[in-house]
């Protein structure tokens, strides 16, 4: 009796509790990030259409047939990271290789969000078009020691020249 009780305690404290936190964090991460993406989808539909065409946003430096009155530098950055549980599960997935779905979902979200915010900033500065958009990615870690280094996050920076016509 005492032995089987010990075994149950062993299973609960040795396996279930250590595993349940990453799984819970993974599930919460999936849910929360899904919500973020939905909100972004809705925002893009509602406000993102103004600057969607080539005429209004481009990655080129040429500005043909445009008569600008003034220009301004726009820059937006955002820091995103996967949840702790996703990092743990990604480690297991990494043993087999292949697509790391939770990671590329996070990165895709970050990139879309930063472009959307760039457009918002352009709007708030009264710009009618955005030119020479550049996107940069860097790993930002403010971790004070090595143990925390997997808590690193990815920074997306978008900068562009906004044109007022």
């Amino acid at each position, binding site marked *: 009796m005492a032995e089987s009780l010990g075994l149950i305690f062993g299973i609960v404290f040795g396996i279930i509790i250590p595993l349940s936190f990453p799984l819970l*964090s993974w599930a*919460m*991460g999936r849910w*929360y*990030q899904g919500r*973020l993406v939905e909100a972004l989808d809705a925002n893009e539909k509602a406000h993102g259409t103004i600057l969607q065409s080539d005429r209004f946003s481009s990655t080129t*430096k040429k*500005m043909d047939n*445009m008569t*600008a*009155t*003034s*220009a*301004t*530098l726009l*820059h*937006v*950055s*955002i*820091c*995103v*990271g*996967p*949840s*702790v*549980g*996703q990092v743990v599960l990604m480690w297991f997935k990494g043993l087999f290789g292949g697509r790391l779905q939770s990671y590329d979902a*996070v990165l895709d*979200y*970050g990139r879309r*969000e930063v472009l959307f915010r760039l457009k918002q900033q352009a709007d708030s500065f009264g710009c009618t078009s955005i*030119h*020479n958009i*550049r996107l*940069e990615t*860097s*790993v*930002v*870690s*403010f*971790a*004070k*020691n*090595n143990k925390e280094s997997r*808590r690193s*996050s990815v*920074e997306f*920076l978008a*900068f*562009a*020249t906004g*044109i*007022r016509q």
Partner: protein
Amino acid sequence: MEPATTISLHMSNVETIPGKTIRASLGLVTGSTVRAKHIGKDIFAGLKNIVGGELKAYTELLNESRNEAIQRMMMQAHSMGANGVVNVRFATSNVAAGASELFCYGTAVVVE
């Protein structure tokens, strides 16, 4: 450490400033800042890591720091007698554990 006076110059990341004419080019100007993170924000960001997504504390910190780097670049340009900076580029690097360097550079110009 916010600079006492905020200067506003014409800036762009293309070779010209649209709508203006460049009269003179004065050379390279740079601005950089190294920032470490507040420990309170550290703990909060750690909690936020349970769900992932955007880490607002880091986003704000980086935006503040980048604005400061730009401000320093503009002050340098201003002291050279320029009223515009073209071809602005940004760079971010991890210089030490717990700190990040934000760097920006461009060409100081006189525009009309």
